């Protein structure tokens, strides 16, 4: 019955991530296209795509706690910061003025996820007890608390205004700087980092999808939709809220570690309140509570400014104008986009994708 796409012998079969040949084909096809793109692109776009992929991981993290489990978190930036500094301390080059151990990425990358996760679990007894506005306020408190520590813990962070340099991409003894040559194909450092982030992106994507399709995910959704009802049907609120924070912080940490190692360094004030809000914007534009939404949102957020710039250049607009400079126009257009989305497509970019997909799914009918 393999050629019958909607036929299931068990619930397990029905819940598989790719439950038929067509989906498997498109998944493999998509991955191959991505790899090809990451090999042929020039450095500017490659840089942006890599940033977007890394940001996606962070956005997924926020999506798990806010989109899936419905818990407001304005402290996502703080968790990203904790992950970042874990990576920097463990992986940083020995000999610099700040605390560094010079370890391999195979060690610091997982740990940069685990440390924020432990921090998330540490505060979860409090966050689990709070709801709505109170939870939001508490998370803002966390942001300022963590930020204060970052600014003053100079041996780790380099201190406010100075910051510190990032570790190198050295994975299992192999330094990405050296590049790889396979036959005629030369992969430089940027290609390798991009491909590496693609791997991490795919792994995290499977992680999110697996949460969404299993018991844990269903527990999250039920908490989001009505916490009292969820408790009544046997969902352990404390436990699942804790799990949501833990997984979310893990993703945040991985995102921070990759992102700032890639950009070359970080200054403590990076992780301020606005940084957390940025992630909320990404998740909302992309589509909260969906697996693909944060992916769309991150790519939109990272790539859109450059696209806007290209368009402005192309038409030669505003070049002589002294009223607005490029960066301001960029921000203006971006702001307009957010407003338009909230009004016309509250389900975000994913909503557009969803409607597009349904248009063809329903063919030749309309529903």
């Amino acid at each position, binding site marked *: *019955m393999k*050629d*019958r796409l*909607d*036929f*299931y*012998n*068990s*619930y397990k079969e*029905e819940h598989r991530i790719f439950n038929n040949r067509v989906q498997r084909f498109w998944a493999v096809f998509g991955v191959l296209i991505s790899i090809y793109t990451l090999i042929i692109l020039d450095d500017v776009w490659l840089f942006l795509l890599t940033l977007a992929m890394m940001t996606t991981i962070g956005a997924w993290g926020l999506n798990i706690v806010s989109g899936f489990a419905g818990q407001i978190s304005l402290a996502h930036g703080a968790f990203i910061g904790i992950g970042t500094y874990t990576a920097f301390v463990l992986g940083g080059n020995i000999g610099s003025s700040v605390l560094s151990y010079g370890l391999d990425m195979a060690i610091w990358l997982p740990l940069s996820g685990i440390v924020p996760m432990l921090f998330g679990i540490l505060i979860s007894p409090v966050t689990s007890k709070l709801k709505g506005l109170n939870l939001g306020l508490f998370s803002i408190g966390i942001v300022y608390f963590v930020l204060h520590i970052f600014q003053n813990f100079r041996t780790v962070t380099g201190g406010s205004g100075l910051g510190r340099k990032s570790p190198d991409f050295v994975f299992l003894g192999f330094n990405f700087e050296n590049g790889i040559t396979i036959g005629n194909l030369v992969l430089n450092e940027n290609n390798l980092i991009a491909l590496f982030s693609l791997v991490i992106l795919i792994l995290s994507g499977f992680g999110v999808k697996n949460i969404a399709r299993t018991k844990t995910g269903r527990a999250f959704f039920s908490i989001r939709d009505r916490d009292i009802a969820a408790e009544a049907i046997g969902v352990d609120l404390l436990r699942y809220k804790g799990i949501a924070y833990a997984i979310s912080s893990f993703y945040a940490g991985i995102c921070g570690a990759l992102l700032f190692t890639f950009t070359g360094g970080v200054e403590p004030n990076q992780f301020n309140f606005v940084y957390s809000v940025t992630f909320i914007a990404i998740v909302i534009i992309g589509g909260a509570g969906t697996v693909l939404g944060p992916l769309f949102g991150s790519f939109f957020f990272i790539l859109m400014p450059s696209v806007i710039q290209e368009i402005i250049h192309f038409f030669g607009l505003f070049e002589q104008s002294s009223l607005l400079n490029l960066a301001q126009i960029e921000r203006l257009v971006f702001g307009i986009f957010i407003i338009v989305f909230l009004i016309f497509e509250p389900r975000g970019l994913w909503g557009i994708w969803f409607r597009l997909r349904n248009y063809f799914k329903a*063919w*030749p*009918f*309309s*529903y």
Partner: protein
Amino acid sequence: MTLSMKEIQAEAKETGGKTPLLRVKELGERFPESIALRNKEFGIWYETTYLEFWNKCTYLASALIDFGVNKGDKVAVHSENRPEWFVSDLGIQAAGAVTVGLYPTNPKSEVEYLLGHSETVILFAEDQEQVDKALAVCENLPSLKKIVYFDNKGMYKYNSEYLISYDEFLEIGKEKLESNIDKIFYTIDNIEDDDLAMLVYTSGTTGPPKGSMITHGNLRWVSGNLVTTVFVESVKTKNPQFLSYLPLCHIFARLTDLLIATQLIATINFSESTDTVQSDLVDIQPDFFPAVPRIWERMYSTSLVKMRDASFFKRLMFNFSLKLGNIATERRLNKSFNDLIARILLLIAHILSFRTLKKKLGLSKIAIAISGAAPIAPEVLKFFMALGVPIFEAYGMTENCAYVTSNDFEIIEIGSVGRPHENCEIKIADDGEILTRHGGTFKGYYKDEKSTKDVIDEEGWLHTGDVGKITEKGSLIITDRKKDIIVTSGGKNVSPSEIENKIKASPFIKDALVVGDRRKFLSCLVAIEFETVSNWALRKKIPFTTYRDLTEKPEVRELVSKEIIRANEETSSLQVRKFELIPKELDHEDGELTATQKIKRNVIIEQFSELVESMYK
């Protein structure tokens, strides 16, 4: 691994055909791992192999013997389609007893009549609903000893001595199997051609139902000859998929779902319930799909109605594809089925629109689809042909095991029921009645010698009661039921079903009943299709509450009137001058329809006599 169609044909030729009972026994030994039955529960399909299927049949037979069922005793099954139906059917026959099928919609008065008339000993009832019907009348049924129920839901508080659950029943059979197995095999080996296999009660548009006696010989003969028909020949995939949803007590479903399926070593899938047939069809995408015109009409009208709601571009694509499909259909009908241009046109239409449409209807894998049991409107038939579905109209009736004629890939004549199957003799009597003769002709009506003599003459010809003629190409055209022919007061002979089918081709009309016997002109009672008409009313912003309210709207009258005018233009015979809308939905339980959803003319004309008379004032 199972057999290919060619190997199946060769084997059948050698053995001369096997009854479903012997066939399942054989398949259980030869292909124990092949999936025989599949049923859906809460979205998941559960499978039964041919070996398990056969084992369960023997358990059931052993239990029946344990409860004192003897050869020739009647055992009834009153259930929707589900694997237990087939297990019971074959288990009953393995014990030497005779299966009596009841329609799930039969009300308790009919249950009482059928069980009483057949002298049923044991009843297999599906669930609480059917058990309640039987328990309400069991005092009047002296022969009834036990009621076995399939579904435990709601049964825990009953403590009638009659009741036993299916699982317990099988368990008893399994325990006693050792002592009974010899007897079962002895019974099976000593089945004579003349022994009864089943009683099939015809739904009876007039008078009480009559029990047709189908023998093991009938089944064996039909099975042996079926393999040469287009039904078997066109299914080329190994282990084809069937969907069983038509009522199994009717001969059409028994023929397709049991005889043809077991011949083809198919998997028989049972839908979750009658309401989910459409979605289960999409799951299974059967290779073989028999349906009654009601089903085809429904698919046709829902497709068109949904298409009307589609966006402009999608409609454009669909209409274009349909145009191509129609051209292809004409070419297929006039030239040959494998006409190259027709194939190319259908391929384009397939890519543009029909691939997904067929998938949504569950028709994407169809090797052959059959329309039978009632006449189908040509528009509907042509629509499915335009989609590229090989759909053929076939003809048959209970009394000849539904083995008579069908259209096939070589000759398709729209409006005819096709050429006779191999070894089936057909002739038209002087009065136009169709007569058939072959090895599948039934033994007679149970306890009704007189009726039997009326339908089978000394030469063995079966008088079908249908009037028809044979075309130049050898296809049979059925005009009407002999007794339904209307003679107007002007002396004209009119076949009502011809006009009715024209009228019923409208997506807004569910049933039409033309009256005019000994009257000056023809008039018509019309039952609207609630779903499409209510949809239409919503779109036109016509407020309504109930079915009755809807029928009283002048706009709806006008809508129907347009459809009747259209039908009048298309018909060659007398025209319908007046019509009235029937103010209620016709229903089996109210006695207006038979269990197979055919209208009972006399009942309706009598019940709505005021409406009828008002048209002739």
